[in-house]
């Protein structure tokens, strides 16, 4: 064979098929298949029932783990649920599946065994940071399904009025921390603007690396959804995280040092105010192909276009964030080694922390291990106090880690992962984020915090707060 001539079919190695058992559907074993899912072939007649069953099973195992998989229905009262909708493809699939499974119109059966009670939807709107507002198309979509949509703005996380609306303690004043110290001490000064949007921008702008920005927005979205769920007196928040998205989040969590709370990425119960909210992801075992097939076969529209991801507006000018690198990696796996994506999720489900959680992180409300920030203080030099140039003549003092002070600071109440996002110094190739460049009057080292983050009260403050209820000493 000449090097110049194009290879003929005989010259090429036979390409390995991506499916294992021929082109016939593995369910009915009679019709030609239409879709390959993890090496198995399904026909278009068997797919809908298989996908509905998969959705119901995942939801049922999360809502009522004690219920039998088939036979007698559970006797527990179906809980009211909130659907967290981003406007992406999995949101459309989630909305449609809930309607199809649990409404008389969708299922076509009046005696349908209901797993859920009243259904509401919540969307977090980040359009104030740039990007398209999806409120109107999402409202239209929800109206079509007869589901009420509540909209929360991203900046509500910094709005005292929203704090009151969701039932949080409204006597707490705005809290800021000093980002120039790794211990993140609280600032007593209340100077500076307190407009929620300015606070949100200042919060994101003071994050040390571009990688922290989408990760923090993800946490803020999760917390806004959870607090809104308590506001509407529901105990279950359902979101449409698909299998690849879950695997991306799991790997990201590991990369940010959040291994202690890895299990919560799959399913979690979060104490929000006085209520426990169960966060479930019934699409957690759905591959992208299954999502795509449902979108296509049900002719669903997706309010957010391919280019409308909120964090796209906040992408750094150059380089890639850890989240984007992980996404590219997992999407490549999904195409070439689809079963491996499932393995990531299933392996993470088996990871159990070696010790009980010492407290809950005040920022993300996830379980945290004891002394998360103390460990970091003992192993890493986060800042060099003496400029190297001035110390050249004198002998270099031994490196010191920050002393473990007893002052009230944010660091000791954060989990390792959130602390890393607020104090990380690493990262290369990622440039400035243009839309956050305007400071809005905030010094770069001052970070306003979301309204659910509270300071630990001192004895005096505690007395002042409950003074009117205390009995006087005789």
């Amino acid at each position, binding site marked *: 064979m000449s090097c110049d001539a194009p290879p003929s079919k005989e010259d090429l190695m036979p390409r390995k098929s991506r499916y294992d058992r021929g082109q016939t559907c593995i369910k009915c074993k009679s019709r030609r298949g239409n879709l390959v899912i993890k090496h198995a072939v399904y026909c278009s007649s068997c797919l809908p029932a298989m996908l509905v069953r998969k959705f119901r099973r995942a939801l049922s195992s999360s809502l009522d783990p004690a219920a039998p998989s088939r036979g007698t229905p559970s006797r527990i009262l179906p809980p009211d649920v909130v659907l967290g909708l981003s406007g992406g493809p999995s949101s459309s699939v989630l909305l449609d599946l809930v309607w199809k499974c649990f409404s008389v119109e969708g299922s076509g059966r009046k005696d349908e065994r209901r797993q859920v009670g009243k259904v509401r939807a919540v969307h977090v709107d980040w359009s104030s940071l740039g990007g398209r507002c999806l409120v109107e198309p999402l409202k239209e979509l929800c109206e079509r399904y007869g589901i009420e949509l509540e909209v929360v703005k991203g900046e509500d996380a910094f709005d005292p009025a929203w704090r009151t609306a969701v039932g949080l303690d409204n006597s707490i004043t705005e809290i800021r921390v000093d980002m120039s110290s790794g211990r993140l001490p609280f600032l007593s000064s209340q100077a500076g603007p307190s407009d929620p949007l300015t606070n949100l921008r200042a919060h994101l702008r003071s994050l040390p690396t571009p990688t922290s920005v989408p990760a923090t927005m993800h946490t803020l979205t999760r917390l806004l959804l959870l607090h809104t769920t308590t506001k509407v007196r529901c105990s279950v928040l359902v979101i449409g995280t698909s299998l690849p998205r879950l695997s991306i989040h799991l790997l990201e969590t590991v990369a940010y040092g959040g291994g202690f709370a890895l299990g919560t990425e799959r399913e979690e119960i979060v104490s929000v105010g006085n209520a426990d909210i169960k966060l479930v992801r019934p699409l957690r075992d759905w591959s992208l192909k299954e999502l795509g097939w449902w*979108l296509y076969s049900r002719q669903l529209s997706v309010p957010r276009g391919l280019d409308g991801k909120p964090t796209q507006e906040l992408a750094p000018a150059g380089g890639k964030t850890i989240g984007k690198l992980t996404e590219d990696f997992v999407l490549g796996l999904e195409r070439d080694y689809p079963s491996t994506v499932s393995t990531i999720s299933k392996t993470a489900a088996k990871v159990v922390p070696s010790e009980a959680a010492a407290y809950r992180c005040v920022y993300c409300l996830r379980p945290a291990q004891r002394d998360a920030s103390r460990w970091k203080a003992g192993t890493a030099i986060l800042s060099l106090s003496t400029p190297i140039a001035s110390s050249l003549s004198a002998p270099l003092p031994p490196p010191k880690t920050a002393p473990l002070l007893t002052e009230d600071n944010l660091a000791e109440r954060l989990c390792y992962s959130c602390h890393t996002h607020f104090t990380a110094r690493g990262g290369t190739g990622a440039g400035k984020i243009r839309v956050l460049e305007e400071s809005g009057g905030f010094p770069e080292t001052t970070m306003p915090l979301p309204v659910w983050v509270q300071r630990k009260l001192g004895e005096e403050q505690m007395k002042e707060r409950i003074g009117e209820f205390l009995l006087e000493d005789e």
Partner: protein
Amino acid sequence: MGDERTIKIKLTFGGGVEVLFSNKRNQTIALPAQTPASGTQPSRPADLRYLILWMSKNLLTDRKELFLDGETVRPGILVLVNDTDWELEGELDYELQKGDEVVFISTLHGG
């Protein structure tokens, strides 16, 4: 009477990928039935590899990276040929026939 040098293909977009194609969910195109010969590569019947290249030159205006990954589509975009997964049809090597319907569904663009 149809032009034998072209084949009519119906394209359908969904899942948000339509924003890259003038927001039109359905389009019918006349694709050259044979790929042009280039260098050592002789002309061959139009296949999905050629369709994607043709689409990138004629239909995609900007942000090509949201649709393309080399000569194929980005991971996360489901491709169906006449309602069947393109993996069952030979993927990029599938030779297009007159009246084929090719569907592109985007499935992942947000958390």
